[in-house]
Structures are given as structure tokens and as C-alpha cells.
């Protein structure tokens, strides 16, 4: 059966050119960067090069890039590391209401350990209002963390403006850029961030590698103590192959991608189905589209599409196992039953027009069939 992957926001396939670049660093050049001999030296050199490539791509200095195991680790590191290094300054943290679970849960964890958390709301398209962030600031605020692009809606947040406010108030600013890196420009200077998270497997790189940008001078506690790798901020034997893969993945983004065109095509096709609605803002990143269909449930549509070989998701992949509706969609003001009806389609490097045609045909058929079953047939 035909297999069509339209879930690039969940994870991306590794680009074969990335894999090729990584291959020498498993069996041949496997050295430990901490070793003094030539194996170690070679590994250290390659790691430094990768760090430089990553730093250049986002406008940072090499010593400001910390390799981690994932965006989840980077986000945990940013929140907990800043909180504990700066608790003498204050105990208040501001995050948005639509952050990824790893920020939400880290904040909740800190909330149980004496920190106060403020959740800034979003509008109906999932965008934070800069004034709300301003208003949330208190004398105790030590950190603001707002994601660049939301993973369920694709909405882009006013990061540069929030960063400006943070700067004026002398508050550290972190942004989770897992869904924006490679899709829209990400530059630490333009975005006014002190800390920034990104992940390898969202950019056609491997799983198991992420980064945290930590601006020079930022006070942060490490999560992992040990041999002192990554400038003493993240001990663990270096994942050289992963770092090479991350860097190579970024290099490949120099070629412009034509996802915006496909987005229009996909969007008009889906919206030709009666009773369909676009939940994503028109100004969101091109790759992520969130829809609802009246009278049918998102999970049911997803499973039917899977029978036709098509992979899409309801909300974010992490919440697929939960009964409660997505906190992101609820934050935009949707009712729980509407939020349950949502479908996220995310396109990427290898999506074709033919894929989209096949998807829309199958979607049309399956929605009709599910509406047959539904008591709410009239759209």
C-alpha cells in the first residue's frame, strides 16, 4: 500500500545526506572527546567543527552552543537551570499557555518547589500578546519562556518583541525553537534571546541530539554533573555523530524549500470539504496546518486515514494518548468537543502535490463515511 507521511511536525525522516555525514563516526572515528590520544583529538575536532556550524547558523558563538540529547532535555535544562542558579534574585517564571509538555511539566515541577509560575494567554489563533507578557512581570521575575512556533497550530510568536521587554527588565528570556528552526529565520540576536532550544529530529537530522544556546554571561546550573563536557554545563560522553548530523542538517537548509506553495494547495483542498475549518493562523509557519471537521472526531479521522496509508495526527504526538483535549486548542478558546475534532497535517521536504491529492481524496471519503455514522450529519 501507498504510504504517505504528513506528520513532519512530529518527527522528520533523516535526510540521507545527513546519515552519510554521520556514518564515519560510529565504527571508524569513534573516539571519546576527553581522551588525549589521536582518537580523542579527532573526535574533539569534529565536535568543535559541528558546534561552529550550528553557532554560525543561528548567529551565536561556538562556546554558546551546548549539545544535549533532545529538546526536552534542553527545555528542562533552561527552566530548572535558570531557576536554581537565580533563586536569590527571585522566584517568578513566566511561560505561555501553549508551551510543549516539556516546558509545562518543568514549570509545574518548579511550581511544586517554591517557584511561582504565570501562564500568559493566547488569542484565538494561538498567538501571545506582548502586553500580556509585560503585565505579568513582577520584581521577582527571573525567566520568561515562550516558544517560537507552536507545534499544534504553527502560530508564530512575537519573540523579538518579548525579548526586548525581557532585556529592558533584566530578565532572562528563553525560547523553544524546536518547531521554527529550519522553517523560518532563527537568529539569536534578532530574536533577543538569552537561551534557545532546538532539536535534531525536527530538521531531518537524527533523534537523540538537541541544543541549548546559552548566551555568554547567563547564570545557569547544569542538570548533569560529571566529566565536565560541554563547557562544564552538560556532562556526558559527547555524541559526536549526533552533533555532526545536527550540523549537516542545518547546512542543507541553505536551499530554499517550496513548502509555502504546497500549503496553499493543501489548504484549499481540505477547506473544499463542507463543514471544515482552519484553526491555524494564515500567518503561521507553512508546514503546519490544523483543521476541524464538524460532526466527526479527530482520532477517528486519523485512524481511518491510517488505513489508507496516510499519517497525520490529532494535536501533538505527545498528547495522542491522553483523553483530555489539547491544552493548546483549549487555550485558543475552543470548546473541548471542538478541540477533540482537530487534525494536524504537517508537510515537509518530501511532500509532493500527488501526496496531497491522495490525502484529500481519502479525507473526503472517510469524513463522509464517519458522518454517516454520526448523529450530526448536517454541516
Amino acid at each position, binding site marked *: 500500500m501507498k504510504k504517505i507521511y504528513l506528520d513532519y511536525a512530529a518527527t522528520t525522516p533523516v535526510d540521507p545526506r545527513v546519515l552519510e555525514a554521520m556514518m564515519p563516526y560510529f565504527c571508524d572515528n569513534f573516539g571519546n572527546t576527553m581522551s588525549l590520544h589521536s582518537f580523542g583529538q579527532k573526535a574533539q575536532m569534529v565536535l568543535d567543527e559541528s558546534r561552529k556550524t550550528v553557532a554560525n547558523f543561528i548567529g551565536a558563538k561556538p562556546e554558546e552552543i551546548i549539545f544535549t540529547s533532545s529538546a526536552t532535555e534542553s527545555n528542562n535544562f533552561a527552566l530548572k537551570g535558570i531557576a536554581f542558579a537565580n533563586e536569590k534574585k527571585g522566584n517568578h517564571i513566566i511561560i505561555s499557555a501553549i508551551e510543549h509538555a516539556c516546558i509545562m511539566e518543568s514549570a509545574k515541577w518548579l511550581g511544586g518547589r517554591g517557584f511561582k509560575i504565570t501562564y500568559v494567554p493566547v488569542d484565538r489563533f494561538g498567538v501571545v500578546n506582548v502586553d500580556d507578557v509585560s503585565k505579568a512581570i513582577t520584581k521577582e521575575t527571573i525567566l520568561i519562556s515562550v516558544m517560537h512556533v507552536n507545534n499544534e497550530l504553527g502560530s508564530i510568536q512575537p519573540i523579538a518583541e518579548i525579548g526586548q521587554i525581557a532585556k529592558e527588565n533584566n530578565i532572562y528570556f528563553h525560547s523553544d525553537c524546536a518547531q521554527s528552526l529550519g522553517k523560518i529565520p532563527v537568529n539569536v540576536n534578532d530574536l533577543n534571546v538569552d537561551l534557545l532550544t532546538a532539536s535534531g529530529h525536527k530538521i531531518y537530522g537524527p533523534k537523540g541530539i538537541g541544543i541549548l544556546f546559552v548566551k555568554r554571561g547567563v547564570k545557569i546550573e547544569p542538570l548533569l554533573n560529571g566529566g565536565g563536557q560541554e563547557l562544564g554545563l552538560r556532562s556526558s560522553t559527547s555524541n559526536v555523530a549526533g552533533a555532526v548530523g545536527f550540523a549537516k542538517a542545518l547546512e542543507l537548509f541553505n536551499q530554499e524549500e517550496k513548502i509555502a506553495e504546497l500549503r496553499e494547495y493543501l489548504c484549499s483542498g481540505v477547506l473544499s470539504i463542507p463543514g471544515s475549518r482552519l484553526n491555524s493562523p494564515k500567518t503561521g509557519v507553512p508546514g503546519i496546518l490544523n483543521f476541524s471537521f464538524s*460532526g*466527526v*472526531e479527530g*482520532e*477517528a479521522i486519523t*485512524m*481511518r486515514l491510517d*488505513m489508507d496509508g496516510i499519517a497525520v495526527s490529532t494535536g501533538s504526538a505527545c498528547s495522542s*494518548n*491522553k*483523553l*483530555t*483535549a489539547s491544552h493548546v486548542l483549549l487555550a485558543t478558546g475552543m*470548546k*473541548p*468537543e*471542538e478541540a*477533540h475534532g482537530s487534525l494536524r497535517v504537517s508537510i515537509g521536504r518530501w511532500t509532493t502535490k500527488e501526496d496531497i491529492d491522495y490525502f484529500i481524496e481519502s479525507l473526503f471519503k472517510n469524513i463522509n463515511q464517519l458522518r*454517516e*455514522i*454520526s*448523529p*450530526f450529519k448536517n454541516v
Partner: protein
Amino acid sequence: MYSKKVIEYFNHPKNMGKIDCPDGVGKVGNIICGDVMHLYIKVDKNDVIEDIKYETFGCVAAISSSSMITEMVKGKTIVEALKIEKNSIIDSLEGLPKAKIHCSVLAIDALSESIYDYLKKNKRDIPDFLEKRHKIIVKNSR
């Protein structure tokens, strides 16, 4: 996450649709997930459910549970039908994920509401337990 049986019933649902002039109708919903189930029954003079159909707006588990309960109940008397518990639906579906247990309860509720409606329409005595169940279901779907 779903068993093969669940997927099979979801992809090839049995007894879906509406019955014209049904003898009993049960309409229930779960306010947390927003799912809704309508169940229609046709009952003969011996209290045997001779036909049963459903309409469900809901998840995979809700659709397969509705489909399963209609199969289990067809040809049974209303007394037998009221004895079906959520566990027998879950077992017949070869299991449901924990978060989806309530979907099978929805099917049980819809069935008992349809029988309640049938008895009420025919001015028949309604057993205590059924009256109690009815009150709880109505309260919960507000």
C-alpha cells in the same frame, strides 16, 4: 494502542444508522470528551430486541463499542440486554486502553436509556435500578 478487534469494528461498523419509528431511543453524551451516542431499538411483543441501530459522534473506541453492543444485543430480550456490563463489551473488543474505558460505558448507558424510553413509552413498570441509572445518566450529561 488499540486491539485488532477494535480497529476491525471501527473500520467495518455494523448496524449503523437510524431506525424509522423506533420503539425506544437512548441519547447520551460524555461532557468531558464531548462524544455523543444515539441508540435506536425495535422491540417485538415478547420483549425481544429485533433490531438495533446507532449513530455515534466520537472516537475510535466509541464507534467500535457502539458497533459491538448492537451485535451483542440483537435477538436478546430487554431483561437479558440490561445485564450486559461494560466488561463484556471490553472483553469482546479484546481490550480497551484505560483512557477509553468510558467509551464502552457510553454504549451501556445508551442501551439502558433506549430500554428505559421503550418501557416509559409503553407505560410499563420501570425497575428501580433502571430508574436510578436513568437519573444518574441524565445528571451526568448536563
